[in-house]
C-alpha cells in the first residue's frame, strides 16, 4: 500500500508544519512543538477554564483540528498510534493553565490514561489547578454495568464541544467538570467497520475481514469487535445498531437525540448522509427526534472503511452549547 509521506520519522512533524501554516486559528506552542495551541483568539487563562487533550496521531482531524475558539485550548500530539508521554502532556497543561484552572480530557485508552493521569499528578504537584476527565462511550467495549471500562469513541466529540462552549462562556472549573461527567453519562456509540485502514508504521492492513462481512463494534484502532454481520442494505445495519444503542441507554418515546455520524476515513459523504437518513428514520420509529447532527470524517483511522453512530440525549443547556458557534480548523457548525 502506497502512503504519501516523506519518512516514517518525520511524518508527524511534516503534517504539523502543514497544519499550523494552513490554519490561522492555531500555532505551535512554545513549550514543545508537539503542543498545538490557539493562535490569536485565546482568552485570558486566569478568567477562562482551559481545555486540552493528548492523543496519538493518525486519526486526524481529531483532535488538533478542534483547537480554537469555543473548543480546545490545546492538543498534545503523540507519534502515530502512540500516546503522548506524560512529560509532553505536562508541557501542554503548563502552557495553557491559569488561575481559572484546566481540564485534561482523556479519551479512554490504556496508554493515554496512564500518561494523562501521570501528567495530571505532576501538574498538581507543580501547583497547577488541573483535573482530568476520562471520556468513554463505546458500548461494545463493556456492558452498561461496567461503563467505566469502555473505550473513548467518536461520541466523545459531544464532550469536547459542550465543555468548550461552556468554558468560553465562563463556567467555573468544578461546574465544568461536573457537566463533562453529565454529558458522558448521556452518550453511547457503536461502530461498524467494513475495510481496514493501512498503518503508516507497518504499511499493512490493520485487520482482515471477508468481503461480505462487517465488523460490529470495532474500536478506532481495529480493536476486536463484538460480532460480524453480513453485508446487506444499510437500513438493516443501522436498524441493528440503533436498537443496540437504545437498549444500552434508552430514550423515551417523545424524546430527542443529538446524532454524530462519523466516517472512519474511507467512507464517502454519500454513504454517511445515507446512514444519517436511516438513523433519523429509525429513531423516528421509536418516537425519538434526531436533531443537530454532526456528519463527516472527524475521527479517522487512515483509510479505514466504516462509520459509527453516536447518540446523546441532551438537556436544553447541553443542546445550546452543542449548537454554539466555534472557530477551529475542522469542527463544523451544528444546526
Amino acid at each position, binding site marked *: 500500500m502506497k502512503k504519501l509521506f516523506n519518512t516514517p520519522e518525520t511524518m508527524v512533524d511534516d503534517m504539523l508544519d502543514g497544519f499550523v501554516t494552513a490554519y490561522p486559528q492555531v500555532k505551535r506552542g512554545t513549550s514543545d512543538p508537539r503542543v498545538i495551541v490557539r493562535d490569536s483568539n485565546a482568552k485570558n487563562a486566569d478568567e477562562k477554564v482551559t481545555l486540552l487533550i493528548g492523543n496519538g496521531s493518525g486519526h486526524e482531524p481529531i483532535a488538533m483540528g478542534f483547537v480554537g475558539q469555543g473548543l480546545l485550548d490545546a492538543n498534545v500530539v503523540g507519534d502515530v498510534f*502512540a*500516546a503522548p*508521554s506524560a512529560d509532553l502532556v505536562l508541557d501542554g497543561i503548563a502552557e495553557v493553565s491559569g488561575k481559572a484552572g484546566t481540564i485534561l480530557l482523556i479519551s479512554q485508552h490504556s496508554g493515554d490514561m496512564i500518561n494523562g493521569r*501521570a501528567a495530571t499528578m505532576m501538574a498538581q504537584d507543580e501547583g497547577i489547578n488541573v483535573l482530568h476527565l476520562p471520556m468513554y462511550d463505546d458500548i461494545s467495549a463493556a456492558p452498561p454495568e461496567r461503563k467505566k471500562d469502555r473505550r473513548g469513541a467518536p461520541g466523545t466529540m459531544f464532550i469536547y464541544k459542550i465543555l468548550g462552549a461552556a468554558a468560553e462562556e465562563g463556567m467555573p472549573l468544578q461546574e465544568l467538570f461536573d457537566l463533562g461527567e453529565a454529558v458522558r453519562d448521556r452518550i453511547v456509540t457503536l461502530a461498524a467497520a467494513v475495510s481496514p485502514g493501512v498503518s503508516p508504521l507497518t504499511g499493512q492492513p490493520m485487520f482482515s475481514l471477508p468481503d461480505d462481512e462487517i465488523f460490529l463494534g470495532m*474500536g478506532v484502532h*481495529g*480493536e476486536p469487535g463484538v460480532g460480524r454481520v453480513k453485508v446487506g442494505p444499510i437500513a438493516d445495519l443501522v436498524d441493528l445498531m440503533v436498537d443496540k444503542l437504545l437498549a444500552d441507554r434508552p430514550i423515551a418515546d417523545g424524546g430527542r437525540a443529538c446524532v454524530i455520524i462519523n466516517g472512519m476515513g474511507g467512507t464517502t459523504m454519500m454513504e454517511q448522509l445515507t446512514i444519517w437518513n436511516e438513523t433519523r428514520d429509525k429513531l423516528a420509529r421509536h418516537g425519538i427526534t434526531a436533531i443537530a447532527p454532526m456528519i463527516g470524517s472527524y475521527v479517522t483511522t487512515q483509510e479505514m472503511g466504516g462509520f459509527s453512530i453516536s447518540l446523546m440525549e441532551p438537556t436544553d443547556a447541553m443542546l445550546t452549547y452543542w449548537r454554539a458557534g466555534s472557530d477551529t480548523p475542522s469542527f463544523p457548525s451544528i444546526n
Partner: protein
Amino acid sequence: MSTDILKLDGSVFGVAVDQGSGLEAAIKAARGAAAQDDDLLQFKRIVVEVLSPDATTLLVDANYGRELLPHYDANCTKMLAFEADVYKISDEDRITALPSNLEVSDFPDLGAEILKFFLYFGPNDTAELNQRKFDLVEDIGQRCRANGVTYLFEPIVYDRAIPDGTSAEFAAIKPGLVQSATRSFADPKFNIDILKVEVPVNFDFVEGAGTAQMSRADAERAFVEAAEAAGDVPLLYLSAGVTFEQFRDTLKFARKAGVNPLGFMCGRAIWNDAIGIFGAEGPAAMERWMQSVGRQRLAALKEAIG
C-alpha cells in the same frame, strides 16, 4: 495469575521478535534495491511460523501483533508487547512510549496470554523519576490483573554517570544495578508474574571469557545475588543482542553458578544472522535457514539451560 498459563512444566524457552524500527532498518539495508514494503512482516512471520512449534512462548510487538498472533503454533503461548515501539523512549527520562492502539483489555480477545512491558531503569536516578516509573509499572500491573493477563516486566538498567553500557566502568557496577532493579520490581505491589532480566555481568570483562576485570567466582556470585533479589518472582534471562554462542555460554554459566531461572527469552541471538540471508537470498532462503540453524539454536539453548 500464576505461570501455569505457560503450559511449561516449569520452563520457558521463549523467542522474541518484537523489535520494530531498528529491525526494519536492518532488513531494509540488507535487502537493498530488492526491499519490499512488507519485508518486516514477512521476516517476523517466518520466525513465528518456524519457531513457535518449538518455543513455549513467543513475543511479538503491538504494531504487528494482530497480524502475527494467528500464525502461532497451537501449543505456543502468545506474548504481546505493550509498547509503541520497543526501545522507543519519550525523552531523557527514558520512559517507554505507550501504544495508543492497544488496550490491556484487548489481550484476552486477541488470545494474548502474556503482556510484556519494557522499561529503562536507573537505580541511581532521582527518587522522583523512579517513583514515576514505579507508578507506571504498577498501573500496567493492575490492568493485567483486572483482565486476567500474565504480566512479564523487563527492566534494562543504566546509569547516567556511565553512559557507555559496554565499558569496563559500567561492567563493574552492572551486577549491583541488576540486583537493585530486580529487588525493586519483585515487590508484590507491582503484580509482576515474571521478571525478564539481563544477565548481571558483562562477560567481556570476566576472567576466562574476556579481560579479567572480574573473577569467575565474583561473576558466579553476581548471578546468585541478582537471582536471589527476585524472591518468589520467577526470572527469565534475555539475550540483549549478544551472539548465539555468547548467550548459550551465559545460560550454562548461570546454571553452573547454581541459579535456576524459569528459562530464557531469546531474540537476536537466534535470528540475527537470518537478516543477512533474508537480504541476500530472500524469504524462502531465510525460512530454510530458520528451519535448520534457527531451530538448532533454540534446541541448543534449551539444552544449555536444562
